[in-house]
């Protein structure tokens, strides 16, 4: 059937694709359509589901191929749908399905026609519509053909038809039209949000579980990281001692003890270096090496295999376990790659963002350890310590020199005694005494090691270093949660606004939050939208 558009002369119809859908446009000066544009639509139930219009039997569909295709183009342009049916068709599944697709946001007028011949099925129809999710205040029952004849004869139409005309005039014209559009828009928004709810609802629980999982795994890794760092710090006693010794030698300038320390450093420089390798970020930082800040440094097999173990003392497998657990939870919340990187850390680190985040974490670690080293330096910088050590060393030095002078001037020159070996012996004792003092100073500096370790460990937790390792999952979960929260906000707003709009007492509408029963049960419908009327 060819669609027919009836409108007052002079109305702008440029929005209606009459040519594209082969519609006939009929201008009129009838009062009934003075303020509305009326479109007589084709049947929705003569075109099969999987049957394209060009494959329809020509004899059957001659002149009106693809009725539903046309309907699909017309109905989105409509504000109100007037559904006209008969006793034979009001229970049609296909009509109900097309209605379901286009009812949201569009008030409806239900009309039973063929009144002079068909039984009155309005009560049954109403119940069926309510079962499908419609609120139906009134179903009109008219005989269209008889009304048309009466109109042609210039006779007054029968009361039932007049009632329909009045409803159209009252609800669709002037302010009624504005109200309809407003309520229609709100209803459409509400329907859309309800549909979103259908999709978001099932993932809400898994998403909460994912967010809890991110928090749980972050805490678990933080705990392991703190343990790992603390373990590395404790194991790096040699590094701490070297650091303290280095600080001592660098800071203690001037004075006899300073001179002694420089001498020791020079002598130590001549000795062959130990073979013991100091590994790990902590150890290398403590001994003054600049640690590699990239995860998989070329030629570093250990770093390649276990970048985090090497860098932070955190077992890579533990991180991968957390990532894998979270990847599973993310899948359950319908969040998958590429938002979620592989659980395997080496693969994950190929992602620039993750690699950069890890590099930042390492930089922070380096800074933290240097701060710890600074604490060591501060302890060595204590004035009382410097004075005490200088005095203790100088006192022995003075005593040795005084004794040597006494032996020389008094014993040898004055008394003529000949004593040998004292100076050599004194120098040995002096060196030993200096070394004891040096070790005492280093021990003093290292005395705060446990405190430094605890302080550093506590600050690691505050620094949120683990977050970059799980950032892809955490970010995705937070984004998804943001969408869910936003949806809930919009739904509340929509319901609040809908409550302020009083629904029409004549027109039917889709019940808020109700799904249409007939719609989704369609068998293998290949089209995304379809129309009916």
């Amino acid at each position, binding site marked *: 059937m060819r669609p027919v558009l009836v409108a007052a002369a002079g109305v702008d119809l440029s929005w209606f694709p009459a040519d594209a859908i082969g519609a006939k446009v009929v201008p009129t000066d009838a009062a009934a359509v003075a303020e509305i544009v009326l479109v007589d639509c084709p049947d929705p139930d003569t075109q099969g589901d999987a049957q394209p219009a060009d494959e329809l039997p020509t004899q059957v569909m001659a002149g009106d191929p693809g009725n539903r295709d046309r309907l699909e183009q017309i109905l989105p342009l409509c504000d109100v749908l007037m559904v006209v049916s008969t006793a034979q068709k009001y229970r049609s599944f296909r009509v109900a399905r097309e209605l379901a697709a286009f009812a949201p946001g569009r008030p409806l007028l239900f009309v039973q026609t063929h009144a002079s011949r068909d039984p009155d*099925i309005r009560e049954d129809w109403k119940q069926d519509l309510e079962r499908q999710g419609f609120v139906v205040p009134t179903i009109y029952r008219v005989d269209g053909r008889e009304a048309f004849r009466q109109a042609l004869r210039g006779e007054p139409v029968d009361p039932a038809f007049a009632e329909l005309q009045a409803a159209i005039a009252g609800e669709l014209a002037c302010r009624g039209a504005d109200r309809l559009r407003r309520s229609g828009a709100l209803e459409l928004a509400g329907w859309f949000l309800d549909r979103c709810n259908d999709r978001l609802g099932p993932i809400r629980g898994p998403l909460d579980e994912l967010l809890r999982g991110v928090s749980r795994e972050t805490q678990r890794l933080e705990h392991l990281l703190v343990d790992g760092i603390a373990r590395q710090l404790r194991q790096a006693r040699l590094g701490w001692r070297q650091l303290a010794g280095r600080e001592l030698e660098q800071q203690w300038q001037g004075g006899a003890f300073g001179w002694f320390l420089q001498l020791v450093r020079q002598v130590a420089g001549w000795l062959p270096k130990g073979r013991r390798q100091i590994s790990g970020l902590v150890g290398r930082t403590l001994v003054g090496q600049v640690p590699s800040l990239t995860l998989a440094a070329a030629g570093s097999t250990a770093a390649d295999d276990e970048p985090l173990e090497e860098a932070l003392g955190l077992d890579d*497998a533990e991180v991968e376990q957390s990532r894998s657990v979270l990847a599973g939870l993310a899948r359950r919340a319908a969040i*998958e790659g590429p938002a979620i990187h592989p659980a395997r850390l080496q693969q994950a680190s190929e992602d620039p963002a993750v690699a950069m985040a890890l590099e930042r974490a390492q930089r922070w670690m380096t800074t933290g350890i240097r701060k710890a080293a600074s604490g060591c330096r501060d302890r060595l910088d204590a004035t009382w310590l410097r004075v005490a050590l200088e005095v203790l060393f100088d006192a022995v030095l003075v005593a040795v020199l005084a004794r040597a002078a006494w032996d020389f001037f008094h014993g040898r020159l004055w008394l003529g005694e000949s004593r040998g070996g004292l100076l050599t012996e004194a120098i040995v004792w002096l060196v030993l005494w200096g070394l004891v003092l040096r070790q005492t100073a280093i021990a003093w500096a290292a005395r705060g090691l446990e405190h430094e370790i605890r302080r550093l460990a506590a600050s690691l937790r505050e620094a949120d270093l683990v977050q970059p390792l799980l950032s892809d999952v955490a970010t995705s979960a937070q984004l998804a949660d943001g969408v869910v929260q936003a949806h809930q906000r919009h739904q509340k707003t929509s319901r609040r606004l809908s409550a302020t709009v009083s629904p029409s007492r004549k027109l039917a509408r889709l019940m808020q939050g109700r799904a249409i029963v007939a719609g989704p049960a369609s068998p293998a419908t290949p089209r995304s939208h379809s129309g009916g009327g």
Partner: protein
Amino acid sequence: MDQRPSTYAVWAERVAALCAAVEALDAAATGIGADSPEDAAWRGQLFEKLRSQVAGEPVLVAAVCGGTNTGKSLIANALAGMPLSRSILEAARTRHPVASIPQAFASQADMTGLFPGFSVMPWTSDDDALTDAEEHLLFVRPETTGRQPGWLALLDTPDIDGTLRDNWARAELVRNAADLLIAVLTQQKYNDAAVRDFFQAAARAGKTVIVVFNMLEWPEQRPRLEHWLAGFAAGTGVQADAVFAIPWDRQAAEQGEPRFYDVSEELGCGKAFVAGDTDPVGLTGRQLVERFATTNYLAVKRDAMRGALEVVVDADRGVPAWLDRIVRMAEAWREACGLLARRVTVSIMLPPVPRELVWNEVWAWLEPKRSGFDLTVSRVYRVAGRGLGWAGRRLGILPDQAQRQADHAAEELSALKAALGDFLDQLATAAREHPQLEAALKAVLTDGDRQAWFDELARRHAAMPLISRDYTTFVREELDRFERDNPGTVRLILTALNVGAVARPAVTVGLGLAGAAVVPPAAAAAGGLSVFVHNIGDLVAGAAASLAGETALEATAAGIKPLLERLFAGWAAERGDLLATMIHEVVLGDTLEQLESRAGMGRRLEIEQARRLIAELTADLARGETA
């Protein structure tokens, strides 16, 4: 009129075998996604028509079908000459079919077999059909007047286009079982897509169709019938065997006596199935049924059975197409399995094997075979070794053995965890690449509790001893076999051990921590333990060479190296087996078995059997064995 007995009974055995083959394949075919909506047609004809009717007494099943509120119940009641289901104003109220069955037939026949898919109930009132029940019910009312032919079962059916989908299903079950359909059409419904779809399936199955145009403005609409019938035929493929027209007459409808006007001749229906004189005032329902009695119902029945079989054996839409789809889908599953095999491999980077544990086992096996002198020297070394070990640990030079084992266990668990995470990653990647895998692995990747898996892995690992009884048995069996196969070599080793007892370091370096002998400083300086683990056979051979001579040790090296490699590999394999078992039992469950079963679906014997039966039935059809 053809009154020969039906011969389609010869298909019975093959149809039964085909049904069995299809049923055997069904669950698995559904599992591999080989089902298609198109299968409904041949399934209906195979299970609801052929299986139930091919072997029984020939009875003509005639069903009144049509859209909502087109007057089906009115027509069915009129044809039956008694109320079957109440005709009411509201649409889609007939929820269940009602059959009028001749008394004699009803008492003999298996109604459930005749109408598969239904629970057959005795008719009690014309409200039975309106019962609101989810179960598919079929009410049987025996016909006692004797006016209905003894071979005719007449049914009223629910609608085929309403909002209640159960009604469609019931109507389709009746259609599949029927031989003759009485299609009730109206001006509003003859061109509806749902109506077309329903009768199109009937036409494909070769069913005889009588068209009844109801609610006509009579005779004003009479000229339009030709156009409507042509449209219906073009849309469905139905070539009506007879056409009747029922004028719209409220009074006749209320009295349950619609008049049937035979318009078959003027609409050019070929066979005029229900032949007879055209009555100017139309026929009553009973008169129409009396005409049925004169017709060759066996020919109609044979056509319907033949049509049903043609649907079943149709290469493009029948069982062969379904079998082809199964093979194709199985092939796709085989590809999926191939992808899994290529992409998903568990790589376990286990820490170096704690050699002393393996050597302890070897040494325990060797100990009874060694000489007293060697054992005495070893005991001395053992005592000395313990002392040195104690001193080394006190000085912090040698690590504590328990601590080393704990560290090793931690490293090993770490490696196993990494491998499990890697395995799940690879599984997810493969699933992303193959949609079938995505669905098959959903239970693992999405629904699985990964935290529980990692916990279970840790639990199993903690419960696993460093040296299991199985491994001890394995070592002894390997060594026993080695001794049987190489008695000379073992003697050579023992000789080397005895000769080298004084120079213990060279041979016992690997056994040091087993307590058999101490690890002398010289041995450690020469490479010691850290090298040993990587070149274990070489080291033993090299160490013994200086004692026993190059020639003698060539054989030793050749025999011992693979043996030791096997022993160490066996230990590592046992650790790897822990993960493999865990993945199999806890993570995957029976997923792999299911995948393999799906991949092997295309080679099931039932497929070949079904193809053979189809070929035989097709040959039967070609030979016209039903004629």
